[in-house]
């Protein structure tokens, strides 16, 4: 537990970024625990807002997350057909808290999405709860806090941040 370094965490987050950018979403989903959550709050909410009481852009439990992956792999997910090209830049990684079976990690993200001649940028901070399992990590919760005022001009968050 105490031996886990920031570099170990970074390796894991960089792997996650690669799986997303390579559209290997079913493999990406395997990085999550069975009780995992993934959320993107509306940008006028406090960072610790709850999707049970406030409106989010994304608030997936594991079921909805797996359905998101299924959807994005279909031709009928029109917004991502053909797939956009993305590049996730993950930086400013810090281990905030160490618990017996869990790490709290924060990072900054910069994601480019390009499709059909238009390139959009998403940036903000991520908070991860990483479960420690047999010497590797699983994501128990990932929350992406956009720094922008809403989704202008991106218009959608159809990719996974």
């Amino acid at each position: 537990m105490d031996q886990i370094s920031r570099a170990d965490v970074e390796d894991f987050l960089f792997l996650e970024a690669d799986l997303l950018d390579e559209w290997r979403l079913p493999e990406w989903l395997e990085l999550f625990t069975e009780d995992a959550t993934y959320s993107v709050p509306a940008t006028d909410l406090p960072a610790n807002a709850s999707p049970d009481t406030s409106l989010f852009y994304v608030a997936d439990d594991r079921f909805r997350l797996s359905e998101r992956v299924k959807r994005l792999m279909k031709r009928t997910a029109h917004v991502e057909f053909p797939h956009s090209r993305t590049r996730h830049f993950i930086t400013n990684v810090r281990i905030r808290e160490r618990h017996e079976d869990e790490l709290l990690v924060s990072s900054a993200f910069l994601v480019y999405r390009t499709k059909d001649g238009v390139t959009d940028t998403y940036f903000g901070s991520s908070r991860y709860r990483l479960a420690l399992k047999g010497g590797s990590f699983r994501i128990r919760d990932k929350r992406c806090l956009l720094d922008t005022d809403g989704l202008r001009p991106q218009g959608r968050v159809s990719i996974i941040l």
Partner: protein
Amino acid sequence: MGMATKLHAALDVDASRRVFRVSRQTFVDAAILDGERREIFDKCWLYLGHESELPQPGDFLTRQVGGRSLLFARGADGAISALLNTCPHRGAQVCREKHGNAKAFQCFYHGWVFGLDGKLRSFPGKESYPDDFKDRPGSSMSPAPRHESYNGLHFVCFDARIESLADYLGNAKEYLDVICDQSTQGMRIVSGSQEYSIRANWKLLTENSVDGYHAVTTHATYLDYLRNTSGGLAQVGFNGRAHDLGGGHAVLEYRAPWGRPVAQWIPAWGEAGKTEVERLRASLVERYGEQRAARIADYNRNLFIFPNLVINDIMAVTVRTYYPVETDYMAISAWALAPSEESAWARKYRLFNFLEFLGPGGFATPDDVEALEQCQKGFRNSAEAKWNDISKGMGKEIPAYDDELQMRAFWTEWNRRIFGATA
């Protein structure tokens, strides 16, 4: 009305041949957009916000409405004002925060201080001004020329001569009443705003918001998702009709297989949800009788209020408004409206329903964004491929929810206002 360009008529309508076509030029021409700003956004009632967004004295928020910068605030006496957010002195925006609570507003440029009603309270160097300067009308922040509310929804208009809001809403009022009747304590806006954009003409979102025809193809993956939820959908088919409400307003009223927190149960909500939905339904029956209760609970409403307000009472209730920035770019704001007294269970499932379907991070709206942007790209060919067709269901005695009557209602009013024409 002197449009700079008028290559051909905006509409091609022939009821006898069941033809209703819209010129694609109306989506790409900057002169048309100028005309819309002048004849529509400067002259119609426009949605500002909901009273529940200002629960306490001193609460305020700033919004862009019809190209103006507005300050929506509740005074110490509880009165709600809609002020032009500009200093009467030299023009700077007085309030630069999106929302908050204040006792007064101070323009930072020269330090003038205004009450929540916009009245000038103090200003530095008053010895250099006449004694009555503070009380002159031009020394205080100006209210929007007109500001009225209906069922907690506040609207402004920049043309002082406009009819009352109630008269303007006309037949749409009854549908707003049906939507608000699902609550005993009044509807409220839930915290969290969805602010997004689409690289498309604003009128495409009017059409899309009341389009029952596109659901099965554009939203195939959303329907797949609903089927995959444990227990699946309600045993109800898509069925219902459209109404032209006059004045450019229109509504679809129909049944659909998704769950409605007030009050159509789906198996995915389990026994706990069933108990809750049955309780809500019994309360509706007690208050309004079987018939109106069934209408409130079982029927979905996609309500369009001319020119740019959508209140869709579907698997959740959205309040959505949108403005053109350029001919091919619009800014959209959307909020969730909910009964203020609803249980934690109902609120949670309402919000999940909302973001799954209605939100730009969900399983449906991103595909609408894509569809509208693809239309706008297709309009690059509008010099040769000139017309959109919205004739579906023309001539029917009862237009179905997935016909296009509601779009024809919008375009007929649009054409009357822009070209003074009757279609």
